[in-house]
């Protein structure tokens, strides 16, 4: 056997595990999922082909699906606020600050901590009568709402908690991006008479735009599939006000055993996510600058 051939065999052996994993845990499940989404399937009896029924039911006869879609988009409000805050923190940390490690740790701690623990903690903080948040608001004479048991306030509470726990990760990314902005660009802008704000808008924002795009895309994909926080904090309530698509999907699949219907829902969400991602890439040509 030639040397080249031998190398091919080594290479294929080396990559065999991830490729096999790709086939077993991605390719085959995806194909099966497409099929199941066109059937009635409880997981116990054989799937029964029903054509596009699941999709028709989803889009035309299930008002709850549309409500959960709205809720999901509402919950994604945490993204713009979280991004602006994490950029502000990164900018502050980038000023040659003493104690940068300490500050970084403070912001990063929730990111590495268990979602279950962080959610339980905030469930206690949001407690209407004895929770820290309402005690704090009480100092200013404000009677706080019953956060998690209020239809109007449950989602804002989830958004608040989402921002708090996600700050650290994006902050680290932004900090690295800021440190990569060439000094010479700032100096050139200064010679041209640009003030602090102008330098921020004309130099900093364009230079870190690839990072902004990355954070935006990964945050949307993450937020629209977020499940554990909702499961622990609100269980979708009160009155479905925090039932997101993934929560509803989970209920259909594992509580009502409507695997076919839930698969159709997964595909609607998957298509939505892919569309948003592509749209983001397409729009990014207008505002993202690569060197």
């Amino acid at each position, binding site marked *: 056997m030639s040397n080249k051939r031998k*190398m*091919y065999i*080594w*290479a294929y052996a*080396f*990559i065999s*595990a*991830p*490729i*096999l994993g*790709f086939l*077993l*845990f*991605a390719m*085959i*499940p995806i194909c099966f999922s497409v099929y*199941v989404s066109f059937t009635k399937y409880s*997981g116990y009896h054989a799937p029964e082909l029903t054509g596009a029924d699941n999709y028709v039911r989803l889009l035309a006869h299930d008002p709850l699906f549309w409500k959960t879609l709205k809720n999901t988009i509402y919950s994604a409000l945490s993204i713009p606020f979280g991004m602006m805050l994490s950029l502000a*923190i990164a*900018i*502050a940390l980038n000023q040659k*600050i003493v104690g940068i490690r*300490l*500050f*970084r*740790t*403070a*912001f990063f*701690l929730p990111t*590495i*901590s*268990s*979602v*279950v*623990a*962080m959610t*339980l*903690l905030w*469930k*206690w903080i949001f407690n209407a009568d*004895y929770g*820290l948040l309402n005690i704090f608001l009480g100092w200013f004479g404000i009677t706080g709402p019953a956060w998690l048991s209020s239809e109007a306030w449950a989602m804002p509470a989830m958004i608040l908690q989402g921002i708090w726990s996600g*700050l650290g*990760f994006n902050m*680290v*990314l932004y900090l*690295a991006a800021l440190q990569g902005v060439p000094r010479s660009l700032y100096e050139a802008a200064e010679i041209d008479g640009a003030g*602090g704000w102008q330098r921020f808008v004309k130099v900093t924002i364009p230079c870190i735009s690839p990072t902004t795009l*990355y954070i935006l895309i990964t945050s949307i994909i993450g937020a629209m*599939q977020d499940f*554990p926080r909702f*499961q*622990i904090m609100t269980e979708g309530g009160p009155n479905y006000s925090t039932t997101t698509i*993934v929560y509803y*999907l989970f209920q259909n699949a*594992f509580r009502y055993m409507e695997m076919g219907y839930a698969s159709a829902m*997964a595909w609607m*969400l*998957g298509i939505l996510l*892919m569309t948003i991602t592509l749209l983001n890439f397409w729009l990014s040509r207008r505002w993202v600058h690569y060197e």
Partner: protein
Amino acid sequence: MSDVAIGVRSSKKRAGEQIRKAVAYLFLIAGSVIMAVPFLWMLSTSLKEEGAVFELPPKWIPEVIEWSNYSFVLGEANLLHGFMNTLIIVIPTTCIGLFTSAIAAYAFARIQFPARNTLFVMLLATMMIPGVVTMIPTFILYKTIGWVDSWLPLMVPGMFGAAAAVFFLRQFFMTIPSELEDAAMMDGLNPFQIFIKIILPLAKPALMAQGIFGFLGGYNDFLGPLIYINSPEKFTLQLVLASFQGMYTANWSYIMAGSILALIPTALLFFFAQRYFVEGVTLTGMKG
């Protein structure tokens, strides 16, 4: 411009810089307090007696410090048992997954072979697929082969490697100069020996970063165990912790003690390996 004018300008500039720094400190200190106070509240609650949790106004330092909350949570409430289960699941999965990812990344970075790029792009495409799409069919698969209510669904897929780790490590391997390998090849080492003896030792920092991420992901995973594990004796740490809600309703000191214990291992990992964390996060982010 005269010297005096320059002097005035630079002192003005310095004053501006000082104000900017002062604002930055104020902002960071305020932010850190907002980040830290919930954790202190968690600690304070975890040390209170049952009734003291509902005292108004709350005392930050409880009158009676109830350390026994912790021993109760660890022992009778099974948190330690869950922790052991988690370690049994996560450690082998992370180690084997890291190895399979690394060796594949090495092939993609260093060996020329037919369809290399196609296979690599195919693998990367898995990162784009939303997890919810594969959740139901994989559940059906494991149910069919009788793996539900066992640890296998939480372990086996990870052992085949992860696309993100392959991508990250491939980037890293491409930066290693090839002279070392050429020399080893001359000495008659085969590619597997080269990988083990030369590449792996050089890749320690990158492997550490990926290993930490893998461990953290497995340790904090809630969705996987929630779907697959039913028997309480097989519960992972996160499942045991989540079950406190139903079991000790309103007993917030137990729930908070459990939560604190759950984050000690990851916090320790972070303190001792902060460098790898920051590098890992940044490098993963830079691919965007």
